[in-house]
């Protein structure tokens, strides 16, 4: 039996790597991958705590998180396609249409 603390440490490290990707990378696709990593870190926590609960509600909630992550990825990909068609770039530092002149 693995103690819960190990799962939490792995999840913390995964979360920090994911947020570092979101904060520092410029390409929008890397940012999407970082968001997926953060979702997975949350899922690890839910499953690790949910194994003590006889009705497995943690796993059910984790399943919801997975589906919402899939939906988020679909919408984000649609937005990426629109951005690339309109502005011909996926670099977040080059997209400044809303910036005040």
């Amino acid at each position, binding site marked *: 039996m693995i103690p819960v603390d190990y799962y939490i440490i792995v999840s913390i490290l*995964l979360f920090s790597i994911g947020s*570092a990707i979101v*904060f520092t990378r410029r*390409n929008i*696709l890397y940012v999407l*991958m970082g968001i997926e990593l953060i979702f997975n870190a949350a899922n690890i926590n839910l499953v690790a705590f949910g194994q003590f609960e006889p009705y497995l509600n943690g796993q059910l909630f984790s399943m919801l998180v997975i589906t919402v*992550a*899939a939906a988020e990825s679909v919408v984000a990909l649609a937005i990426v396609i629109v951005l690339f*068609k309109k502005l011909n770039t996926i670099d977040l530092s080059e997209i400044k249409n809303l910036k005040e002149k």
Partner: protein
Amino acid sequence: MTLIQIVFFFFSIQLLGSALVILFTRNVVYAAIALMSTLLGVAALFVIAGSDLLAVVQLVVYVGGVLILLLFGVLYTYRDPETYYEKKNILLSIATVIGISIALLFLLRDLAFDFPLLHASPFDQKGITKATGYYWITDKVVVFEVVAVFLLIVLVGAGWIASKVLEQNKRAQ
């Protein structure tokens, strides 16, 4: 150290190592492959935690769906690497990782997780996947219906957004 702990550490190191590859690589395709490795590692952790059904869902949804979608995005938005050069700030990345993880571990230090360690761990129980499936599809079926409608709305909406812009582009040309 028991065998299950060795397996756990192996998969955690694989998972975190490939996550670091995503953080530091310059090639988007390498990053997508590393993301696949990370997701497989997470699925292995789910199996160790006794939720086999969720591991299968993880494989189907993430590795089969989201990753292919991301690869499509990579190919669609391809740019010549010689004209597009992403500036990297390695020091800032390392500082962010270390800072956030140390802050969260510092928070963890004060929490004591005195959960009762089950002697018969969940992955030893026979037929837990079957029981989980029955429980979810009978008692919790409303949740799945809500998720199904939500996914339908999202898919139709995403296709509508993308196709509208593509048609406008075609008309403009």
